[in-house]
């Protein structure tokens, strides 16, 4: 009997109380921080990365979730440090990254730009990665680099309490901001 009550409290009452408080106090976050347009279409979630391939957008990190940024199949690539497969993948990605952004063969490529994240849904890229992609994006959009740089700064998530974690540029928010200035 006591076990049954315990089960009802832990599995029924507790999640429902959290549900109630969460929906009242933080409705946006509790429902996935969704980005919804005026006509009601869901464009994605602020917290989840999306794939971008066009030159006028900033590109996210390589993703191992499903066929890339599949938000219902999160996960990493799980290749080890001495994996031949990982080595060839990184080699290809580096070549592609340099061509795409018009970089010389000597330019060091930021690690986050050529490695897959743990979740496959990493919404961020590093500041250096954004800086290297910036000239390409500005050129494709015929805007000044200063304007784009301003938006990059506005869409950078700083470390929590200024010491926890690393700063990252939120790719989806940045690309939406770029689209909205036109």
């Amino acid at each position, binding site marked *: 009997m006591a076990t049954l009550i315990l089960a009802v409290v832990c599995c029924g009452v507790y999640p429902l109380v959290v549900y109630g408080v969460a929906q009242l106090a933080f409705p946006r976050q509790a429902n*996935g921080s969704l980005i919804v347009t005026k006509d009601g279409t869901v464009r994605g979630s602020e917290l989840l*990365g999306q794939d971008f391939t066009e030159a006028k957008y900033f590109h996210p990190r390589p993703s191992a979730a499903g066929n890339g940024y599949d938000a219902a199949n999160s996960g990493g690539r799980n290749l080890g440090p001495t994996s031949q497969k990982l080595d060839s993948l990184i080699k290809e990605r580096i070549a592609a990254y340099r061509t795409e952004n018009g970089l010389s063969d000597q330019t060091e490529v930021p690690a986050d730009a050529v490695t897959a994240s743990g979740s496959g849904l990493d919404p961020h890229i590093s500041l250096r990665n954004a800086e290297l992609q910036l000239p390409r994006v500005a050129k494709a959009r015929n805007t000044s680099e200063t304007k784009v740089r301003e938006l990059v700064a506005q869409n950078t998530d700083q470390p929590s309490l200024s010491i926890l974690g690393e700063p990252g540029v939120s790719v989806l928010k940045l690309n939406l901001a770029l689209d909205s200035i036109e």
Partner: protein
Amino acid sequence: MFTYAILRLQYLLPLNPQHLGPLSPDLAFNTAVSFTTNTNWQNYGGESTMSYFSQMVALALHNFASAAVGIGLAAALVRGIARHSAKTLGNFWVDLVRVTYYLLLPICLVFAVFLVSQGMIQNFKPYTQATTVEGATQTIVQGPMASQVAIKMLGTNGGGYVNANAAHPFENPTPLSNFIQMLSIFSIGSGLTYWLGRMTKNQAHGWSVWTAMMILFLAGVLTCWWAESAGNPIHHQLGVAAADGNMEGKEVRFGVFNSALFATITTDASCGAVNSMHDSFTPLGGFVPLFNIQLGEIIFGGVGAGLYGMLVFVILAVFIAGLMVGRTPEYLGKKIGAFDVKMAMLSLLVLCLSILGFAAWAAVSEWGKAGLNNAGPHGLSEMLYAFSSATGNNGSAFAGLSGNTPWYNTTLGIAMLIGRFWMIIPIMALAGSLAQKKVAPASVGTFPVHGGTFVILLLGTILLVGALNFLPALALGPIVEHFQMLQGKLF
């Protein structure tokens, strides 16, 4: 059994908006065992296999119960040490209920709401279909995640709501949520050492045990951080910026440091949640979590399990000290007899046997090799990690290993049962035996169980036992891989 039934029949039960089908029998067995034993190994995919009902009832109940059981067992052992000439160790059911209602639930409530404020989801909606900016469709996971994650961390269960566990932006939205999650993994395990001091009326002893844990923890973090920020020379040669460290399998918002820190914490405790993919760590970076588990997860440890694991080492350390000075070993005034040492050793040997035995079996059989994602020494590390994690009831993985096959599901399930219950039986025997003993007054010749000498002796015992048991196997896995990485050898 009840959990197994829910997992098999989830398609008939309510709260399944995605219409997910039943789990296969072996997967359901593995998952049911894994949550009962506080392991929470994830052969299931989270968002792609579990309905909301399965998550809330089948899995969450065990998250609470297995954590409360761990604390209850530790309480029984500590009472065994503190009481003398006693017949009983306290009422287990009373402990279980008290721990759940007065400790776990209140903390979880506050913690879960905080997590939602950081961006974690808590709802009962079906998955959302989104049209991405470039016009593709993206299915966004929904469900009662925050309430699950709060207990998963606090109870050091670690079974993720989604496949990517705490690397997923919903399950760990910000560096702040990451920090609080790490804190909650350690909070109960760390607090129990203080309680040990209070119960045995020897607060200095509690702090000494805590200090030994802290030293091992710092050594682990620093090694792992150093290895991960040094990165992979093979990739640096291709043109990856060396200053960035090893970012494969890590999230930008956490970076190298918070990923290494989380990996160390989750394996010091028997949590097993991950915020980065351990499989993609550098060899020495991956060595740290693996070795932490093999030591028995006694560095703060799983709730309760960490303390009783550590006390086994304390008894051994006292025993060795007694042998060295040629006196009958005493622990807090109680003479340690042959029976107590036998039981302590048994609990250590069971761990060793299950890890090495199963890993060796997997390494020489077809089913074992078929599951590998990486070749060469890294493949051996994957298997070693899997059985260490299962036996140690950790639940984290070198996740490249495809563990969701009938063979792996079954063997890992058995390893978890051995690791949990064959540990518990000798420890309860030990507790019972200690409780009955009389207390002899302390004399000049008594070895003090606090202070620097004791801490060093305890550390020595732990490292010696750990190293003797597992170094040969580790040398063939991560250690040889490290040297091959430096030479640029690929598999």
